């Protein structure tokens, strides 16, 4: 891939047409991931060494999304927020947590540094298919959906189902992620925490995103999503259903019952892959602490940023 051809389509229709006529081409949104691969393989200077990462099996065609305005829009409707896939993380963070749900705002603010977020895009981050990508866990808790456009049709899929496994998305050949739709909910508590270090074998990155609706000390609704590279993205509706309707603070019996159910739920995550059991033991014990801490302090929380 020493000679690179760059296409700069000016609208979505042109983008889809070019993408279909150039099999194996790379879509370049913010390009942070592509440029990491460029820098580590020396391709930028015309060096013809071994390509890495996303460039490994690619053709020599790059398609830049920078002129496709349809992918750079943020639209606020009464019931949802819609973010184009080529909107940068810094643009989303800049809108503020009154418009962007607080869990997503916090997750985005934790990705890289401001100078990286100025170029990295939400769609690009999702398409790299990293299960420990903090905004992914937040979007799963928000029950966001994403639009996938191909030449002949478009489809909406829950973000929870978008990443099949680490590094693999649902995108078929020449399909494009175009929009992310985030429904607004009447949540009065939003909690997002990341802990650990990306890529660390001993202390891997773990994300927890929780939305709750409290009324007169009663938990009316709750969503809990946890995510990490070795355990994937998990939501447990049974655990959420158990908590709905509970009065806070939890009685000792309810507290113990929740602790037991949480243990059962996390044990499943721990056993998911025997090769990563030890790593997962750290992950699940961290999650247990974060979730118990959340439940114990829920009554004291209003909105947690």
């Amino acid at each position, binding site marked *: 891939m020493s000679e690179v051809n760059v296409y700069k389509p000016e609208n979505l229709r042109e983008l889809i047409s070019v993408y279909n006529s150039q099999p194996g081409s790379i879509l370049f949104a913010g*390009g942070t991931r592509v440029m990491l691969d460029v*820098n580590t393989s020396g*391709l*930028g200077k015309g060096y013809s060494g071994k390509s890495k990462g996303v460039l490994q099996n690619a053709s020599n065609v790059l398609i830049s999304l920078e002129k496709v305005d349809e992918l750079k829009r943020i639209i606020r409707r009464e019931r949802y927020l819609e973010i184009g896939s080529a909107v940068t993380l810094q643009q989303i963070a800049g809108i503020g947590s009154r418009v962007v749900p607080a869990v997503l705002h916090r997750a985005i603010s934790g990705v890289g*540094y401001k*100078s*990286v977020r100025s170029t990295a895009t939400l769609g690009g981050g999702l398409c790299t298919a990293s299960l420990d990508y903090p905004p992914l866990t937040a979007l799963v808790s928000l029950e966001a959906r994403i639009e996938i456009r191909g030449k002949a049709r478009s489809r909406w899929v829950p973000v929870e189902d978008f990443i099949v496994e680490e590094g693999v998305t649902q995108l078929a050949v020449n399909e494009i992620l175009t929009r992310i739709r985030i429904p607004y909910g009447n949540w009065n508590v939003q909690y997002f925490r990341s802990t650990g270090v990306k890529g660390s074998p001993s202390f891997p990155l773990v994300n927890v995103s929780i939305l709750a609706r409290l009324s007169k000390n009663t938990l009316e609704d709750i969503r809990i999503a946890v995510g990490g590279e070795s355990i994937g993205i998990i939501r447990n509706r049974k655990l959420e259903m158990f908590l709905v309707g509970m009065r806070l603070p939890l009685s000792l019996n309810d507290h113990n019952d929740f602790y037991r159910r949480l243990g059962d739920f996390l044990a499943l995550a721990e056993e998911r892959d025997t090769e990563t059991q030890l790593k997962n033991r750290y992950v699940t014990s961290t999650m247990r602490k974060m979730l118990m801490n959340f439940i114990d302090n829920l009554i004291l929380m209003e909105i947690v940023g």
Partner: protein
Amino acid sequence: MRIDFTLNGRGITIDADPLETLIDILREKLELHGAKRGCGIGECGSCLVIFNGVIVNSCLIPAFRLEGSEILTPEGLKEKKDFPDADMIVREVLGGRRELFCSNGVIMAVKNLFTEQSFPDEKTIREALKGIDCREVGKENIIEGVKRLVSARPRRRQLP
């Protein structure tokens, strides 16, 4: 490929490979050595430049994105005298040490911070300087220096 863009207020034309990084273009083609080549993965902040008004890591910007853009490098910043100017940042934030590896990254980040906010609070300062790694001066000393700049900034006189 042939690329036209504006660098430090002057229009220029260069020839570059589409995936050549901006940091390589600045240092090797244009002999501007203010931005330093550091980690190459957007972590260390030594290659910061202002690209179309936003602060970016020049190691992550490919040549093909430069067409029609406006770039401000540490060299261009030295000519700008609005508050705080580069000398002031060196004096207050870097303890007068201009020639450190990280100096220009710190100057770019601080300058960009004051462009975005006239009187940033501590949280904003910390957030803006998160990607700056300077072992010589130390993160806390840098933050204290920026806070001094904030308090030294002249406030507009309130009308009665």
